[in-house]
């Protein structure tokens, strides 16, 4: 139990998906221009992350690993993620229209977000149990959401400020990301003490 929460919180705060593992940086930089888009993307990432962990984990441990085909994980996982997204889209559109509206167009775009494949691979690499893998995926999704929401605020402030010509747009966003990342470094050590 303690293990679960330790994984959850350390993935959210210390090993933050975007700010320390550098996964999903593209969507992080691209979609944080306004709150609505980043919310849609975050919901979609959390959802797809959880479902595809639940699908890829058994595939790896009951199908690939016993037959010695572990090296096929990249190929299989990316195809599973693509298929999962397609199926999910159809189901959600029918069964949960409000959720579908919230995710909007971000669901199909998510297939090749490197955050999803990255987290699947990390879960296998760390040899988590199934519950811990789900926790790590949930934490990764929540960490992504947290980083997105923090950064939306930062960028809104930046829109109105006077920046040198060459630094306008992406470079200044990257500098801001650097400072947000420094802020997240402050969390390291907190989790260890919290659960010791």
């Amino acid at each position, binding site marked *: 139990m303690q293990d679960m929460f330790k994984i959850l919180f350390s993935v959210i705060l210390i090993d933050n998906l975007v700010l320390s593992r550098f*996964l999903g940086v593209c969507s992080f930089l691209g*979609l944080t221009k306004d709150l609505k888009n980043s919310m849609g993307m975050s919901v979609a990432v959390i959802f797809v992350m959880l479902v595809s962990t639940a699908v890829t984990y058994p595939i790896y441990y009951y199908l690939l690993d016993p037959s010695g085909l572990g090296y096929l*994980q990249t190929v299989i996982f990316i195809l599973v993620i693509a298929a999962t997204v397609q199926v999910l889209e159809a189901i959600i559109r029918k069964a949960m229209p409000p959720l579908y509206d919230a995710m909007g167009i971000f669901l199909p775009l998510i297939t090749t977000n*490197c955050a999803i*494949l*990255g987290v699947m*691979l990390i879960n296998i690499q760390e040899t988590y149990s199934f519950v811990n893998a789900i926790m790590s995926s949930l934490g990764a999704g929540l960490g992504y959401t947290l980083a997105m929401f923090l950064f939306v605020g930062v960028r809104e402030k930046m829109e109105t400020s006077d920046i040198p010509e*060459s630094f306008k747009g992406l470079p200044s966003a990257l500098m801001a*990301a*650097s400072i947000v990342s420094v802020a997240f470094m402050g969390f390291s050590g907190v989790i260890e003490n919290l659960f010791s």
Partner: protein
Amino acid sequence: MAKNKKSLSYELIKGIVKENPLFVLVLGTCPALAVTTSAFNGLGMGIAFTFVLIMSNVVISALRKVIPDSVRIPAYITIIASLVTIVEFLLKAYTPELDQSLGIFIPLITVNCIILGRAEAFANRNGLMASIMDAIGMGLGFTLALLLMGGLREVFGFGTFFGINMPWISEGGLRPIGIFALPAGGFAIYGVLVALFNKMNHSWYSRKPDDTMDRRNYPGSISARTDAPFVSAEAASTGTESIAISKGSVPESMTEPGERSICPGERD
């Protein structure tokens, strides 16, 4: 690009400054930030990436008349993922320590936007030689960019270059600045270099900094990817326009005529 045929040598050199994939097109940011803690890692990642890019361009260009249009994206992903698996094996066998330090970013080459973007935008509609040149040029640009970032971060962060101690840093009173080796330093160095390339493109090709960031004709460049969902999300919310987005495509109107965007959302 298919519209106006350029010479092979142009395809080769365009990737270095003018269309540098990392600093100008802003593609492949994830591996660039994550693995460039040292010059050696940056170079290794660049070479692995270039290999996959060249091979995938060759295979896709050769098969461009065989692959049906409707399943081309799954086909590309499968081809690229298989090539990445080969590279993974090669690295494990010959440079285990590089494989260790690159970690999951080797399998993540699969979802690197540059490779899929080049497959869709170039190899899909150009001959074999031009595709190889394009792949070498883009790969070279990406490798040099990673080497530059890795070198800067290693020199400032550890005071070494390719693991060799730099006396003018360690003895010159300039102490290694640890933060450059951390994620925060990666973002900062990347930001400064993007700004520098903006400036360089501005003065060499007399292109306004804004133009370099708004490159809709490059599938997957960050502006094309971010504006598309942004615009269509607004259109969808106002209900003025019904937009059905199939997997891996943005509305034709969002892309340059004749160019189908392959990386609409985010493909890192």
